[in-house]
């Protein structure tokens, strides 16, 4: 059983869980993810392995409530169990000593970025981190990221914390200060990844992005996670999730994420409704 050991709220609608998953804990590497089902009739959703403790046999998952399944998950408390966890899936991040590594994270993307930044730091890179959030209360893992970074810059869209502006503004000003960057890693909302990658391409900085298309099995079986990279079809779950950001077809990927927007809204509304009339809505919102 994948029993939940710890639950901690990291920010608005973001929860960190520590959960039993011994095989995953002992086999995972930074950049890999799991697929979970909260209940035995639930949807399969991918979540990055934010951290792991092989001795304890636990992994951490950081989840942002955006729809039915993630909201359902947010209701779980220590002692409850996640019905299925399979992983680690995907290829691990290519971690080596590059020199200076720029880690760019946005929104919930900071969760998957954390183990990579940590890995880059352990590989004796100089790590410069730029984190973006719409507002201060949406920023997560600032302290954790600070611990694995040599330099940390925070931007918020509304200026409620750090510098007002977008991550791309912060990268530009870093560059104009003469900072040399050997490798960039970007994880965040797809639009942010697209614009960051356009910028780093222009600046000539090799960049990897971790893609988050819709997935089902995570083993290469369905092809639902396909993305176009250098004009070729790739399956993000087995060939990725990380790809060279400069050759990803971002527009196609962003469009495909919207395939079920109507259906997702219906499921989420129904779930909220059921919570309100049936169970205690608790902290589902």
């Amino acid at each position, binding site marked *: 059983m994948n029993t939940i050991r710890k639950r901690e709220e990291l920010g608005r609608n973001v929860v960190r869980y520590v959960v039993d998953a011994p095989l995953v804990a002992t*086999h995972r590497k930074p950049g890999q993810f799991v697929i979970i089902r909260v209940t035995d009739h639930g*949807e399969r959703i991918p979540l990055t392995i934010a951290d792991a403790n092989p001795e304890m046999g636990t992994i951490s998952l950081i989840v942002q409530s955006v729809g039915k399944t993630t909201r359902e998950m947010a209701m779980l408390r220590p002692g409850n169990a996640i019905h*299925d966890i399979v992983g680690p899936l995907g290829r691990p991040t290519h971690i080596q000593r590059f020199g200076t590594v720029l880690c760019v994270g946005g929104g919930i993307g900071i969760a998957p970025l954390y183990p990579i930044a940590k890995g880059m730091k352990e590989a004796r890179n100089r790590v410069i981190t730029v984190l973006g959030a719409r507002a201060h209360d949406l920023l997560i893992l600032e302290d954790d990221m600070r611990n694995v970074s040599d330099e940390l810059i925070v931007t918020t869209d509304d200026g409620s914390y750090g510098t007002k502006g977008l991550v791309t503004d912060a990268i530009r000003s870093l560059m104009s200060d003469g900072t040399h960057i050997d490798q960039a890693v970007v994880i965040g909302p797809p639009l942010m990844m697209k614009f960051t990658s356009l910028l780093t391409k222009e600046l000539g900085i090799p960049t990897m992005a971790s893609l988050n298309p819709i997935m089902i099995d995570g083993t290469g079986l369905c092809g639902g996670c396909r993305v176009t990279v250098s004009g070729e079809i790739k399956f993000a779950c087995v060939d990725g999730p990380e790809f060279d950001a400069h050759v990803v077809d971002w527009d196609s990927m962003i469009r495909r994420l919207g395939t079920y927007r109507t259906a997702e809204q219906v499921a989420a509304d129904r779930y909220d409704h059921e919570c309100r009339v049936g169970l205690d809505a608790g902290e589902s919102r």
Partner: protein
Amino acid sequence: MNAATRFKLPPVVMPEQDPAERVHNVREVPLGFTPEMALQEAQRCLHCTNQPCVEGCPVGVRIPEFIQAIESGDELAGIGIIKGTNLLPAVCGRVCPQEDQCQKNCTVGKAHRDVGQAVQIGKLERFLADWERENHAAVIPQIPPSSGKRVAVIGSGPAGLTVAGDLIKLGHAVTVFEALHMPGGVLGYGIPEFRLPKEIVYQEVAYLAKLGVDFQYNTVIGKSITVDEVRKDYDAIFIGSGAGLPNFLHIPGESLLGVYSANEYLTRANLMHAYDENSDTPILRGKSVAVLGGGNVAMDSARTALRLGALKVMVIYRRSEEEMPARKEEYHHAIQEGVEFHFLQNPVEILGNREGWVTGLTVQKMQLGEPDASGRRRPLPIAGQTSNVPADVIVVGIGNNPNPLIPAALPGLQMNRHGGIITDEDTMETSVPGVFAGGDIVLGAATVILAMGQGRKAARAIHAWLTGTTEKAKD
């Protein structure tokens, strides 16, 4: 009854759900034989001395003998005879391409020059298997004392289940590792409920569990546990990881919204129950659905689309009706249900609107030329003849390739150029000692019965390997 009387008996028609009604549910289409119907059908068997039907069966089920048992009213004996060679008769009776195997060779059909007149062996097989299940008559065999040997089976499809069943009965400890949260491989996630009720698969798995097989779900070998770890912990390994990798056509427009691989479409519908409006897993319910391909995968997708409420479903196939690899029964059922067939049409481009949603496809008209490597006549384009077909969902069902996960995790494995694992024909042993393989991971996308046949061969060889009757040192 003499042969002449038998020969005159017409085939017994198995009752089916009415087409107009069944497209609104996912319940099984053919309803099964009553004991009386089974008896009547059994009486059509001539009990030929040369038994051509047995010859046609990839695992050599003793067909005339089980038919004789039905005639004598001894179902228990009948199912025992089948199970001696076939572990999953309830599955095979429903999904085997009998018209290309046992029934193709049947003397009755041959004499009528119509395979449709052959003794309906598959339906009789199903009858016995259903009888056993409904009467809880499955015999729990005596299991010999533990051999102390451990076998790891990768994948719970028909190949893996067969190996597990055979080896547990020989006293070896067996663990089946399955990547998904449910068992059965294609039987679980691919073949729809209306053709193979999942309850049947679950009961077969429950039976194996009762015999002592340990099933570990959500475990991807090569990821959750490395192949090296498995080799350390187990005395032998069987790889039955299937051909789950969907092919795409590599034509423009395949990334448009509303384009599915058949695997994704069927996985959403079956594994994740998206046909149920209350399921958390969404599926696009197109009004006009085009399915590309002509095999069982395409038939299953087309008939699933109808059950998801499509008003128009088209199967678009580049060869002609003659070359279609689908089981005849599925083709007939699809036609009865209103699926349209567009033969000699090759998709060349998928069309979309500005928001990226599918609107249809362009097809190229084809004609048949000389036979190609598969022995079927090669489709050739007729210059200048293309047309557009409107559709709001497109399902690409042109086949699957061997799953590359295990080969990638075990570099010593010798592979063929189609991505299949190369094995010894008789023992199913791979180039890595103590590692055996069978089913679709060896054959490419094939059939349930061939997967089971290879599983049986492998089990025999694994047993020999474990008990030291083969002369090979463990590395």
